């Protein structure tokens, strides 16, 4: 028994700022002070509050240290772990209230959250199967194999109302029912861990923080549909996740929880890892299976659906990481428990990766039906720098931008579709008044043009033409007719593309056109970028009444475009400067240099 447990976050965000070195240093210091038998150091998965990383929590006190540096470790060991005096200056300041220290669960970031899929992240050591088992791990698999028929498992999934967390929201139970209904000598269970949406990292955090939950749920799926082999297709860009998955698979084998005759019931199930190689389209189910087969990851027409002909032409069921992370608890706590959370048609919780212009960047899990306002303003702590909210982007390159007027909408699959976005895998990027919506649409189109696999024409050529039009608009070469043409092309691409990538690729354009048409018009009619992002439409000008003639801007200008005039403003001692627009390269160096706010852009 240890008297203290120190949890250090080992998720990708915190390891990038050296949390593993911090854990090493801790162990070293504790050993040097002879405390290593009294204080236990545990490397966990992601706590969610990535903006404050590296994160360290000391129990039993529950002291939440944030932005810890390696140099802070000796002080924490000596003061806190040796003498019992909490190092207040390193605590997350929101937990400090005059003389007392608040529980982490009472802070704005955690209070409104409900952790189901993330329940073990930041709690257990993901590299120890015993930690998982101590938290009810593999109990659901035991229950399924010894007390339930496959039909009962599927019925439980149907009753729970669980829908696919990868984005489209197809009912999981129905998927399993279809795969069960097709007879074959071999069936497969696949896990989609090819989290390709830029800005989304919830699946990675589950894999890093709680890998066994995915293995357990896949085995349950295997039992339900009658499969003995599983594949996890995971991005090679997630090395920590891959490593911990492999450790988890090996440990599960050792304990007889994977392999042959699991729990002595005669049920066999094994799992292999397949690495992706950086192709966004492989998040599409048929493309993912083609890629597991070792080929170019091009999608196949559906039907036949994977439940009929999937991997190696055999019936296959494919679910996303977060979907799997919910399953063992649905089995243990019952379908009614799960269905009691959320909205009428979207049950349970959803994990969002909160990023962009937001104070608390990180992972949040909330019941379906929570409003966007709650997520952004309360949990996310609002927008930094007192800037004004402009839009929230959900669904990545397949989704859309949600404007301020819809901040109070209850988030679920159907409501998001109704306002022209989609749930997607859960990336939620917040944008403020300094983001140009035409530029954002262009950014996503650049992404889809790059990632279009090229198999079908509407997507390959259509997205390229869309991008060309957006480029013209951001350069001030657009026309009003072009905006109409663009909209028509969007609907054409949506209606005619082969797979989900092409069918949703125009969404960023359509949703920005729907809510921010005034910005498009400003670009084509006034030739201005209201947010000041599109360089070709930008002009820097010196306000000669405000200029004090210090000449700093002129010295900073890399192309000598700023020269002195003979005008001296009233009350100023030296003549003002001016910018020669024919020479200006719009680098913004003068704007950043001027302390007197005499230079404006627009």
């Amino acid at each position, binding site marked *: 028994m240890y008297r203290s447990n120190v949890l250090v976050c080992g998720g*990708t*965000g915190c390891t*990038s*700022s050296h949390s593993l070195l911090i854990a090493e240093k801790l162990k070293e210091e504790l050993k040097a002070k002879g405390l290593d038998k009294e204080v236990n150091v545990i490397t966990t998965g992601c706590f969610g509050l*990535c*903006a404050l*990383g590296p994160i360290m929590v000391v129990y039993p006190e529950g002291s939440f240290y944030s932005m810890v540096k390696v140099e802070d470790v000796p002080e924490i060991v000596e003061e806190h772990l040796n003498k019992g005096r909490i190092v207040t200056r390193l605590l997350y300041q929101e937990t400090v209230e005059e003389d007392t220290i608040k529980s982490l669960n009472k802070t704005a970031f955690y209070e409104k959250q409900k952790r189901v899929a993330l329940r073990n992240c930041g709690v257990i050591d993901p590299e120890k199967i015993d930690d998982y088992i101590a938290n009810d791990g593999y109990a659901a698999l035991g229950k399924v194999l010894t007390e339930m028929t496959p039909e009962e498992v599927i019925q439980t999934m149907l009753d729970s109302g669980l829908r696919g967390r990868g984005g489209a929201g197809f009912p999981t139970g129905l998927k399993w029912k279809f795969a069960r209904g097709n007879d074959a000598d071999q069936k497969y269970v696949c896990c989609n861990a090819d*989290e*390709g*949406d*830029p*800005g*989304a*990292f919830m699946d*990675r955090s589950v894999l890093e923080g709680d890998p066994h939950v995915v293995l357990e749920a896949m085995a349950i799926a295997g039992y339900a549909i009658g499969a003995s082999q599983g594949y996890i297709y995971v991005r*090679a*860009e*997630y090395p920590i996740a891959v490593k911990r998955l492999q450790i988890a698979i090996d440990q599960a084998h050792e304990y007889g929880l994977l392999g042959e005759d699991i729990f002595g019931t005669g049920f066999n199930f094994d799992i292999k890892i*397949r*690495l*992706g*190689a*950086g*192709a*966004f389209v492989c998040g599409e189910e048929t493309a993912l299976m083609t*890629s*597991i*087969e*070792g*080929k*170019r*990851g091009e999608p196949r027409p559906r039907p036949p659906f994977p439940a009929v002909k999937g991997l*190696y032409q055999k019936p296959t069921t494919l679910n996303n990481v977060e979907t799997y992370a919910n399953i063992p608890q649905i089995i243990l706590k019952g379908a009614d428990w799960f269905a009691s959370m959320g909205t009428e048609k979207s049950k349970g919780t959803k994990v969002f*990766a909160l*990023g*962009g*212009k937001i104070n608390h*960047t*990180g992972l949040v899990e909330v019941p379906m039906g929570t409003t966007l306002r709650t997520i952004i303003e309360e949990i996310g702590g609002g927008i930094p720098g007192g800037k004004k909210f402009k839009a929230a*982007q959900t669904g*990545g390159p397949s989704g859309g931008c949600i404007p301020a007027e819809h901040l109070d909408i209850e988030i679920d699959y159907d409501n998001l579709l109704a306002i022209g976005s989609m749930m997607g895998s859960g*990336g939620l*990027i917040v*944008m403020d008044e300094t*983001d140009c919506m035409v530029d*954002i649409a262009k*950014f*996503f189109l650049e992404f889809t043009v*790059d*990632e279009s*696999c090229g198999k079908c024409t509407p997507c390959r050529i259509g997205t390229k033409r869309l991008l060309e039009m957006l480029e013209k608009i951001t350069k001030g070469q657009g026309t009003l007719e072009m905006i109409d043409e663009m909209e028509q092309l969007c609907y054409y691409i949506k209606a005619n593309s082969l797979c989900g990538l092409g069918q949703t690729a125009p969404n960023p354009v359509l949703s920005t056109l729907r809510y921010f048409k005034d910005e498009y018009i400003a670009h084509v009619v006034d030739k201005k970028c209201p947010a000041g992002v599109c360089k070709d439409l930008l002009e820097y000008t010196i306000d000669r009444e405000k200029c004090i003639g210090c000449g700093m801007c002129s010295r900073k200008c890399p192309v000598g475009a700023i020269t002195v005039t003979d005008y001296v403003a009233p009350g100023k001692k030296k003549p003002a400067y001016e910018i020669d627009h024919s020479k200006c390269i719009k680098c913004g160096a003068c704007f950043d240099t001027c302390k007197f706010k005499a230079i404006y852009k627009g």
Partner: protein
Amino acid sequence: MLKKISSLPFKGTPEQEAQLKEVIAKHKDDPGAVMPVLQEAQDIYGYLPLEVQTMIAEGLDVPIDEVYGVATFYSQFALSPKGEYNISVCLGTACYVKGSGNVLNKLSEELGIEAEECTEDGKFSLTACRCIGACGLAPVMTVNDDVYGRLTVDEIPGILKKYKGA
């Protein structure tokens, strides 16, 4: 995705070839072996020149066009060598809205190369990469295994200097 194919001569060693043969032998009977073999081959050689692809095609007894097709399809497979220090700038959405585009431009300007290129002395290569999931640190870049987060454009010359001297 457009791939830059290297025109530099192939400099594989017999040791590397022996390693590759081992990898091929290990996967030969697996269904769908091409991708895992290409991944391990890239770990051995650092990139996938045509010579290596040919050895894989012959070793696994699949047509070279299939190997080439797979190697050019996925963005992780590199057909040109990387520099001693490979700099990856994350262009995920969270990083992009926080100015990673400017970071990439600054690097490009400082190094005199475009994204997906390598400096003439072989010291630096520059890549624009997809979201690495460290969105809490946006904007982010990596130099080999070192991660730099919450970057500003002004920090770039200083960071490069550390590696130039090394």
